[in-house]
């Protein structure tokens, strides 16, 4: 019962945030000096065509009315029609979101699989060579522009060395697996299509490394500092004094506590990955949400911009909620309040 109450409160909170997000984005997209109809129809359009277009997209209605129409539409699952692609925004999002999701998952996986061990390693050997290596690499990771890294990585690994592909999700002549989730790796596993599996994995390497570098650095630093904190505790000194075997046990215990902050920021990391995906997808010709957002923003396609923003803005709270739900169920202390 407490759980249901907790869940309900969080969901209401998320809904409130989404309303705020939608109002702000709506306001922004409509404070536009330029005319989206002109953007869509181009230089050769006649005035009559532009007027017809504006009527079709309700651009001639007053703002609050447009907003209400929009919200009513959302409740029916209709996110409006994209001015640029002339398709339902919901369809556009459904097409592009899985690609970004797959890229973000891959980047997140790399961040955890590389970042956590690196952080631990660096904490254990504090002050020595491994520590320096990790800290320099982490510093660079937090200071590199992701688009610049992407350009260099493509130039080196695709152009000069030819080891990895320079863009896209699959080889040109490998057909995509039947769509179940839209994540090619998952779908090809489900369909036992090993050609597609191999091809999609290879194509994921460079973009996810590029996108994930920043969050790997963040996670490595966070793991390092919480490990150090744990290692400096009294019980660690006692364990050291008592002997090696005890110390191993304590390290493991310490590790568990050290990882708590890391797990906590998974949601936050995921949100920042979505942001970084915008630039990564441009460089790697990745047909995802980021590229869709850029194209929409440039063409003043505000239904699309609204749709993307709402979708992206909901990811972080939902991911956080998922983590909290997991904690709630699995940690009896929290349940007892």
């Amino acid at each position, binding site marked *: 019962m407490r759980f249901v109450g907790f869940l309900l409160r969080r969901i209401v909170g998320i809904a409130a945030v989404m309303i705020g997000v939608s109002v702000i984005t709506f306001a922004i997209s409509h404070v536009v*000096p*330029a*005319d*989206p109809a*002109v*953007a869509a129809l*181009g*230089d*050769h359009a006649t*005035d009559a*065509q532009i007027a017809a277009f504006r009527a079709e997209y309700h651009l001639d209605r007053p703002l609050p009315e447009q907003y209400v129409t929009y919200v009513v539409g959302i409740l029916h699952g209709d996110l409006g029609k994209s001015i640029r*692609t*002339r*398709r339902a925004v919901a*369809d556009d999002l*459904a*097409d592009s*979101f*899985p690609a970004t*999701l797959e890229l973000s998952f891959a980047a997140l996986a790399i961040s955890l699989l590389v970042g956590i061990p690196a952080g631990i390693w660096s904490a254990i050997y504090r002050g020595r060579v491994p520590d320096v290596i990790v800290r320099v690499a982490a510093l660079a990771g937090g200071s590199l522009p992701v688009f610049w890294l992407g*350009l260099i990585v493509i*130039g080196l690994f*695709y*152009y000069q060395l030819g080891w990895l*592909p*320079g*863009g*896209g*999700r699959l080889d*040109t*002549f490998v*057909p*995509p697996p039947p*769509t*179940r*989730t*839209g*994540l090619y790796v*998952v779908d090809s596993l489900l369909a036992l299509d090993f050609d597609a599996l191999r091809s999609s994995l290879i194509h994921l390497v460079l973009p996810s490394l590029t996108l994930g570098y920043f969050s790997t650095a963040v996670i490595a630093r966070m793991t390092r500092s919480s490990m150090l904190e744990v290692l400096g505790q009294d019980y660690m000194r006692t364990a050291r004094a008592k002997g090696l075997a005890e110390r191993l046990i304590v390290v493991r215990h310490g590790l*568990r506590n050290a*990882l*708590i902050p890391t*797990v906590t920021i*998974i949601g936050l990391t995921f949100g920042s990955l979505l942001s970084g995906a915008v630039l990564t997808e*441009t*460089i790697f*010709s990745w*047909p995802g949400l980021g*590229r*869709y957002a850029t*194209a929409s923003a*440039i*063409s*003043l396609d505000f239904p699309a911009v609204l749709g993307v923003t709402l979708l992206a803005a909901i990811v972080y709270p*939902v*991911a956080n909620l*998922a983590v909290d739900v*997991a*904690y709630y169920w*699995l940690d009896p202390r929290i349940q007892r309040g």
Partner: protein
Amino acid sequence: MFRQLRYTSIVFAVVLLVAAACGPAANPSASPGASASASPSAGGAASTLVIDQDVSDLISLDPAVVYEFSGVLLAHNVYDTLVRFEGTDLSTIKPGLATSWDTKDAGTTWDMTFKLKTGQKFASGNAVTADDVVYSFQRAIKLNKSPAFLFTDIAQLKAESIKASDPSTVVISLPKTASPAAFLTILTFTLGGVVDSKEVKTKETGGDSGSAYLLDHSSGSGPYVVDHWTKNAEVLLKTNPNYAGTKPPLSGILVKHVPESTNQQFALEKGDADVARNLTPQQISALQGKAGVSTTTAASLLLVYVGMNALKPPLNNVNVREALRTAVDYDGIIKDLLKGNGKKIQGIVPLGLAGANETAPFQADVAKAQTLLTQANVGKVTLDFLVPTGTAPGGVAWSDLGAKLQSDWAKIGVTVNIKQQPTADLLTTYRAQQGQLVLINWGPDYPDPDANVGPFTDYKAKSIAYRNGWDDAAIAQKGRDAALITDPAKRVAAYKDITDYVLHNGPYVILYQPTELFGLRSNVKGFNWSSIGWVDFASVTK
């Protein structure tokens, strides 16, 4: 430690489940053919032409809707038209679906009769009949999308003016104020593409004349059909099994969306792409002499120009406009910025169309320009200069072009402030006559000189002349008259007259006519790009 792993894996599992739940929602948008037959191999890599280009302008493949470059290129190879141009020749109309045609003076109208070739089939197997032609043209008028004005305004067609007098004859009546010659060139455009009315009628929903279906499916009689269009990623064309003409050598055409020209260049050099469409002049030079690749150029009918708003002082002063024209280093732009990939033209009719005027008297003459300015007696000139974002035709960045012009004009003491804007903002301002200097390009809608002369001279057409506030009734009338002249020699003379006048009096600085640049694999042959904006894939081999 393990509890943390458990938490982490539970989070992953939860999100995966959510993603999987979204899966069925993701399905409907993928066209039914996509998952099943997404194999581009009717032969695989060896017989599929892979074209890397920026396809972000692709909105629909419906011939009644398509108007942007990517769509036109694809629709042209999927739908046949009544008449066509062959190869790169834009002066002779050749038979297409129609084997012969004639024009009769019927009093108040021109009656054009088209006789269809026998034995033509659509990809569905249905025969091509006059009813299909009537249906196709009428739906284009009814849908009234971007290209429809070619039928309704230029040719002044009404739906009831298109009739099928028998299963293989179409009769179209044009009002006397429209030009049958112009109409014939309009018919070669994708707007004149003929769709399979029997098939499309079964796909109509909610009165859309089958537009939703034809957005990403094809129903034509051309050499290729649309296999699939994965949005934002690629379009695949495969050969039409029921094509009445010679089977094309390449069984597949794959157009991949690769917006970064660097990626296109890499793909071309590695053999992952056969054609790269958006390379810069530098990249083209860099490809010279490299093994396995070659480059080719093709004429285009575009004009890159600066519009000067004659409503905004001091641009209302002819001498000021002439001074700005005189100060520009046209040769430098073509030689250095475009690396030779542009033709020098300063008149409003592009080279390649009858009536093009090669007179190009302007080349950076600082002294003369300054004299003109002094004569104008307007004091110090400071102007706002709207420049688009992105790349200009010819492969040079708009900003580089703008910066060069800014520095050319600074030499004669004119200060221009560059304001770079995305095309949408720029067009809104320009259309509302609010620009001062605007850098932009124009391409004719159909390969007839009137497609440029009208917009550039006729204020009432609410096109380019209107946007630059140039209301010159005399020249506008001359333009309209010239459009209706039937004798070719007289027409050319009339256009020479008009273009000479506009050269020194109009509000335009015509900079260059860009050359289209293509990077190709050396084994690709027959890629003959027509300046109207397409290539016949059926003639390409590799």
